[in-house]
């Protein structure tokens, strides 16, 4: 019974050390390297009234970026407040309406677009930072290291209790 309890304690502590290690090796790089990473959300792009006129004159509409960065799982909603219909790739938005595009995979696109003077809109879709990313990053190295430490700890000799000596 005493031996079992010691082994249980050692395995638990080993796994805890492993998970702490996982937290360190996952969260620090995420903090340092992926400052732009975030969870998916809905992003609205407004096409203001007069955009088609500006584009026909070869001008860049000031409130519309030439390219945008998203994460997988984002929904891009294009709200067309212009008096003419607009399109962005497969997204066709009649005047005074809105349409949404779900971005389901990481990739870089250059969509055919009616609200850019160059007729092209760049979209960079990156992998999102979700709780699965955190959990996977922590559990992967954490559990592996925890098991290794646990196996090593099982090989260590068990110290006899003071009562047993007496």
């Amino acid at each position: 019974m005493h031996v079992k309890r010691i082994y249980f304690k050692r395995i638990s502590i080993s796994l805890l050390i492993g998970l702490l290690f996982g937290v360190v090796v996952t969260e620090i790089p995420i903090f340092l390297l992926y400052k732009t990473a975030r969870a998916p959300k809905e992003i609205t792009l407004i096409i203001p009234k007069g955009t088609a006129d500006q584009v026909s004159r070869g001008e860049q509409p000031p409130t519309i970026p030439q390219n945008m960065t998203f994460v997988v799982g984002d929904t891009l909603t294009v709200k067309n407040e212009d008096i003419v219909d607009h399109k962005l790739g497969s997204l066709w938005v009649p005047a005074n309406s809105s349409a949404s595009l779900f971005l389901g995979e990481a990739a870089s696109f250059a969509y055919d677009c009616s609200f850019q003077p160059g007729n092209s809109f760049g979209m960079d879709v990156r992998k999102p930072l979700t709780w699965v990313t955190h959990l996977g990053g922590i559990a992967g190295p954490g559990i592996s290291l925890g098991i290794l430490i646990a196996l090593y700890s099982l090989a260590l000799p068990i110290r006899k209790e003071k009562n047993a000596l007496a």
Partner: protein
Amino acid sequence: MDRKLLLTGAISFLLLGTLAVAVFIFANPEVPRGTTYGEPYPPAKEFTLIRADGSVFSLSDYRGKLVLLFFGYTSCPDFCPTTLAELNRALETLQPGDADEIQIVLITVDPARDTPERIQDYVENFNTDFIGLSGTEEELAPIWNGYGIFRAIPGTASAGGYLVDHTARVTLIDRQGNLRLSFPSDMPVEDIVHDLKLMLRE
């Protein structure tokens, strides 16, 4: 003591698992996989064309049904036959009776070659309930514009004749005659079926 601990652990694990599953389900309600239109939904542009049998097709006559509108042409070597075959497969996947609630319509982007008879014969190769429509370029141009359809003949002819560049998007019109969804040409059939089921439930 050990058994009690094990039991407590197992129950806690089960409770946490159930909670995680519940959170996952309720935090992710079923949403369409195609491109969606926001409320207030834009009304689908009304149009009228003469069918192969001489009857008049008016979009408004199909209120109460879901209409899947696709623009293509009978000499199309790639997107059109593939899309029509996939739409037919989507209908076959639905429950019996549900397919009757959906009308598939193909409108030509090549009126010079596609007569109403030719396009109707063409769509019937995929499904006898599909409707194929054509007309003169003057009749069709406002319809193409009304649904944001790009259409151009690049001028390079092949052995089978010329090709027509066109938008390969399927537009879903709801029972009230509003634009609700559109499916890009590369959308998997199972995603189309998923969205059709969602729309049929409304």
